[in-house]
């Protein structure tokens, strides 16, 4: 049976207003009146809302508490279109400002940023050099730079580019020098980085960095949820804040076999700006978690609590370099068979270390400890959740919201390490574990020697299943050679 509306003839009247609308719209566009998007806002974590609803607060309604937390977060971190760290009174007194700016960079970073800018703005700098100021095109992700250029510098260079910027200060040079300097020394503001984040990162990581962007449902593993402040592939101790270098490293290298690609083609300045912004999102999420906990325990939210927690999170991030992990001696370059055997014994030990209980006897990541009773299905087992998943489950979120937070220990036979396959990377993973996962730090009785034995045992497993090796073996088989004797390989191994 046809839908009733399809059999009725379309009324003719609405056409006319529509036409008038189109005409008016075109006229507005022609006059430069573009439609403006609504002001962007960060939303609260669904975990926060569930926690507040389940908390049975006496003095305040969950919606009010949520609004208070959201307002507090907006005060501390701003909005996506205008993100900004709140400057505390004592920081201001000590001349500290957590917001990024070029004059707060250390010398080495500033030099790298400048070098990157010379490539990024090569065209602009070339045109400035040639004196063709009016033709300088607008670069991407540099709105504040562009505003500075069009409002302050461009009118000056167009009228007289040889005039001094400040006649009393020779060092500042002419306006032409200033024009080049504006581009060369550019360091992105949080606003510019947020814009870049929204174009390059948001579709996976989400507006708030919750790992819930529009493409995230199609990805395995899930994109990182920054909001708990936990990052897996870092060079700091387990569950501490990452250093800037750790975040930058991931941006430069990507994460192998995940949807996180390397962004090395962007300039150093752009990437440093993204690091600034990811730090803001992660801190925002952490403060949100702490404020939710405070509301739950105290029953209300006070201004003092907000500022205390903000300061607490900042201290944690400021201390990140102190938690850096490295090895004092030389990294062993190869392992004797006894060392690998020792590593194997440690790996298989079910009392201490217990690697095998999760990674499985063949290192396939299928040990029995990764299973637990499924609370949603009687008598069924499910994969254990990681810390992100556990926190969501504890907050009372439904089962569907836990998807993608299952634990999956590394399968060494895939011969891939997401956080880097260098010996020192594996040393860090084994010695201090992986933040947010069930991979713990090594037991205290493990000496560095034990850890290196484990590293080389794992690398040995990986070597055995390397694709290039397997293909070699297959070719050897086809050629009638024994699979174990290498083909015409250069000497060495």
């Amino acid at each position, binding site marked *: 049976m046809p839908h009733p509306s399809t059999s009725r003839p379309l009324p003719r009247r609405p056409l006319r207003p529509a036409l008038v609308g189109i005409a008016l719209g075109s006229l507005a566009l022609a006059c430069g009146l573009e439609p403006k998007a609504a002001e962007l806002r960060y939303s609260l974590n669904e975990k926060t809302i569930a926690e507040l609803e389940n908390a049975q607060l006496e003095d305040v309604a969950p919606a009010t508490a949520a609004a208070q937390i959201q307002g507090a977060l907006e005060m501390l971190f701003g909005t996506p279109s205008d993100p900004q760290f709140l400057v505390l009174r004592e920081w201001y007194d000590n001349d500290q400002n957590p917001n990024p700016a070029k004059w707060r960079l250390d010398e080495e970073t500033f030099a790298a940023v400048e070098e990157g800018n010379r490539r990024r703005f090569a*065209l602009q700098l070339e045109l400035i050099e040639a004196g063709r100021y009016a033709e300088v*095109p607008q670069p991407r992700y540099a709105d504040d730079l562009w505003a500075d250029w069009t409002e302050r510098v461009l009118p000056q260079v167009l009228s007289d580019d040889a005039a001094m910027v400040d006649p009393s200060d020779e060092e500042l040079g002419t306006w032409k020098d200033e024009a080049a300097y504006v581009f060369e020394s550019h360091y992105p503001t949080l606003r510019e980085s947020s814009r870049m984040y929204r174009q390059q990162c948001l579709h996976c990581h989400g507006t708030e960095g919750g790992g819930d962007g529009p*493409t995230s449902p*199609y990805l395995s593993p899930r994109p990182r949820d920054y909001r708990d402040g936990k990052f897996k592939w870092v*060079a700091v101790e387990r569950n501490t804040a990452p250093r800037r270098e750790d975040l930058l490293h991931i941006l*430069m*290298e*990507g994460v*192998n*076999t995940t*949807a996180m*690609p*390397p962004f*090395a*083609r962007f300039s150093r300045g752009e990437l440093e700006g993204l690091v600034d912004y990811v730090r803001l999102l992660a801190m925002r999420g952490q403060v949100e978690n702490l404020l939710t906990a405070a509301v739950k325990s105290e029953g209300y939210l006070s201004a003092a609590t907000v500022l205390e927690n903000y300061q607490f999170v900042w201290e944690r991030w400021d201390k990140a370099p102190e938690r*850096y*992990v*490295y*090895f*004092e*001696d*030389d*990294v062993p*370059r*190869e392992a004797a068979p006894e060392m690998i055997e020792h590593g194997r014994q440690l790996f298989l030990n079910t009392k201490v270390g217990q690697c095998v209980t999760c990674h499985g006897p063949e290192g396939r990541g299928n040990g029995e400890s990764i299973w637990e009773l499924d609370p949603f299905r009687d008598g069924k087992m499910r994969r254990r959740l990681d810390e992100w998943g556990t926190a969501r489950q504890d907050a009372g979120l439904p089962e569907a919201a836990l998807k993608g937070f299952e634990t999956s220990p590394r399968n060494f036979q895939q*011969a891939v390490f997401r956080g880097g*396959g*260098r*010996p*020192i990377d594996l040393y*860090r993973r084994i010695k201090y574990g992986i933040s947010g996962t069930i991979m713990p730090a090594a037991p205290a009785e493990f000496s560095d020697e034990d850890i290196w034995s484990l590293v*080389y045992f794992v*690398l040995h497993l*990986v*070597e055995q299943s*390397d*694709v*290039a*090796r397997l*293909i070699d073996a297959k070719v050897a088989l086809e050629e009638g050679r024994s699979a174990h004797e*290498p083909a*015409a*390989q*250069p*000497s*060495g*191994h």
Partner: protein
Amino acid sequence: MMRLIVTALFTALLVLGVWTFFDSTTFLLGPERAGYRWWWPTDVSTYGGGIDLLFVVIGVMILVFFVLTYVVLIGAVFGASRKSEEKAAFTHGNHKLELLWTAVPAVLLLIIAFSQMQTWAAIKFRGAIAGEEIRAEAIAEQFDWRFRYPGTDGVFGTVDDIHSATDFVVPVDDKFVFHLRSNDVLHSFFVPKLRLKQDAVPGMTIPMWLEVDPDRFAREAQAIELADGSEGRELVVDLICAELCGWGHYKMAGRVRMLSKNAFEAWMAEQEALRFDNGEPE
């Protein structure tokens, strides 16, 4: 009136077509850049001349027939649409004409087929690189390029392998043979500046090679300072994925860094040191 408009439109198409063929700079998207010759970036490989020649041969053929077809078309549109009392002639076809327009393209196709064989054999046949040492692996993956070098022991899959994301670093000294693989779906390894294009097929290991012409490299490369203070030379060009490989296809851009011999050795040494770095801050 209509007759004139249609004729003018077709003539405009003809003029535009010929114009675009000869004047690329007006139609190249993006800022006008140095390093472009006619429609393509200048070639820095030793073997790219053959490919460019093929391109020119096919281009000229297309141009000639484009002009020919349009002249006939415009003539037909203009001539046939005039008011006339004459009755239209009816034809069952012209055997000679049909023979002609079958034979001419066939000959042209044969010319293309035979003239490209040599180039194809030199670039793609495995015989050209039989027995050569495999010096790197390029691995395509949604959505990045990763590269692996066998390190000092010359064997892939050992602890001293050198890994590089995004940047494919190659020396300019001689033939550089490498393997191309894909981890997931079809990708295509495309370096316009090196006239190199090859699909990466999951499950297949495809041997490839490239060779940078030292003179052309010398003309375009830039000086860089090496760690020991000496001067090396570097040329960075685009590596793109030329096969729609999924939603992040546009992200899949890499770079080929061609380095002079000393710069490549310095890079290798640096990477080897980094491989066994203990992470101690300086």
